[in-house]
């Protein structure tokens, strides 16, 4: 559709069609939005109609509203040039409804990631219990590199731990009954170890803590 379309016979009906849609959109009819916006984008006379309808409303509300109405097209043309230079920063990003949808899967994903992290810590700490037999976790125990960090972590026990997390028996109970009380104290040790490694070497990533401990501790066993 171009600016001349409204002058051509085959499109003679088009203006009245889009004018009705422009009028409805002005009044907030969302069903009119698509067609009205399309008409605006594609036809100069549709833009003029949109302007004229608004001027009518303004004049009805206040007669001094018509001051610049005759030169409004110039204002828009000038602004459009500047707008063209503006990046479309707005585009598909946040501000739309899908935000909720995105959160909907992000939250469970974050929770799942949390569980994986906790499970990893628990696995390491279970192995950390000296009394526990290798048979209890055969698949992993067969790999000495995995078991070793337990020793390394156990060696860190003297590190101070927050009283609140060390419910009853800091460390001791964990050794006697790792399956039950192991969680908090060991998690604390894990964090302490993580802090230590993080300070010691920037190359050690969180996931690599256990493995690097292995290298250090293995010869000592």
């Amino acid at each position, binding site marked *: 559709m171009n600016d001349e379309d409204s002058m051509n016979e085959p499109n003679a009906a088009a203006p009245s069609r889009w004018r*009705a849609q422009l009028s409805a959109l002005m009044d907030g*009819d*969302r069903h009119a939005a698509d067609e009205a916006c399309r008409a605006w984008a594609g036809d100069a006379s549709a833009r003029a109609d949109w302007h*004229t309808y608004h001027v009518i409303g*303004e004049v009805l*509300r206040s007669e*001094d509203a018509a001051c610049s109405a005759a030169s409004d097209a110039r204002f828009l043309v000038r602004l459009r040039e500047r707008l063209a230079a503006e990046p479309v920063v*707005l585009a598909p*990003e946040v501000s739309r409804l899908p935000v909720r949808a995105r959160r909907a899967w992000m939250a469970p994903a974050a929770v799942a990631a949390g569980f994986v992290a906790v499970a990893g810590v628990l696995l390491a700490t279970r192995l950390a219990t000296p009394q526990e037999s290798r048979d209890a976790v055969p698949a992993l125990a067969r790999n000495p590199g995995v078991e070793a960090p337990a020793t390394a972590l156990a060696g860190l026990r003297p590190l101070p731990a927050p009283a609140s997390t060390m419910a009853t028996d800091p460390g001791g109970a964990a050794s006697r009954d790792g399956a039950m009380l192991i969680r908090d104290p060991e998690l604390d040790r894990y964090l302490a170890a993580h802090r230590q490694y993080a300070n010691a070497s920037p190359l050690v990533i969180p996931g690599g803590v256990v493995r690097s401990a292995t290298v250090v501790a293995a010869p000592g066993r």
Partner: protein
Amino acid sequence: MTETADADALLVERAKRGDKRAFEMLVVKYQRRIERLISRMVRDDGLVEDVAQETFIRAYRALPQFRGDSAFYTWLYRIAVNTAKKLLIERKRDPLVSESTLVSQDDGDETSRVESELTDGETPEAVLASKEIAATVNAAIDALSEDLRQAIVLREIEGLSYEEIADVMNCPIGTVRSRIFRAREAIATRLRPLLGTREGERW
């Protein structure tokens, strides 16, 4: 009414999705109000349009931050006020700027004053055109049938929704929509020649 919403919200939503044309529709809707607002703050008429342009550019840039907590015009109004204030402060601080912009306010300089007046909407011609537009609209309203006149008055002056107008006029919503459109068209037919939008300036 489930099918109607705030027209601004519909257009803002589109503009936020990157549709600059939808933003232009909002510009055309509010340009005159914004210019009137600015003209009460910035006495230099030659600057009113510049500040209005800057207002809309800033609004476009800030659109992602517009959450719809307030009406779009309220938000735009604030941007216009801030833009005008910033300009006034700059004029006080920057002697070069104030020299060039204050000249048009100086009554002693006839030439500059005339030039400035010619660029804004307050020229005698513009005032005359404005009066003519108002007279034309009023005459067109008077010529409408009672149904059409009541429908557009309830919509444009009273600000009622289609649903409310349907209640008042005791007719279907579709009839309200059609009456308002026909009223607008009848007035627009008389107004178009005055707005110079058919030939001359292009949109």
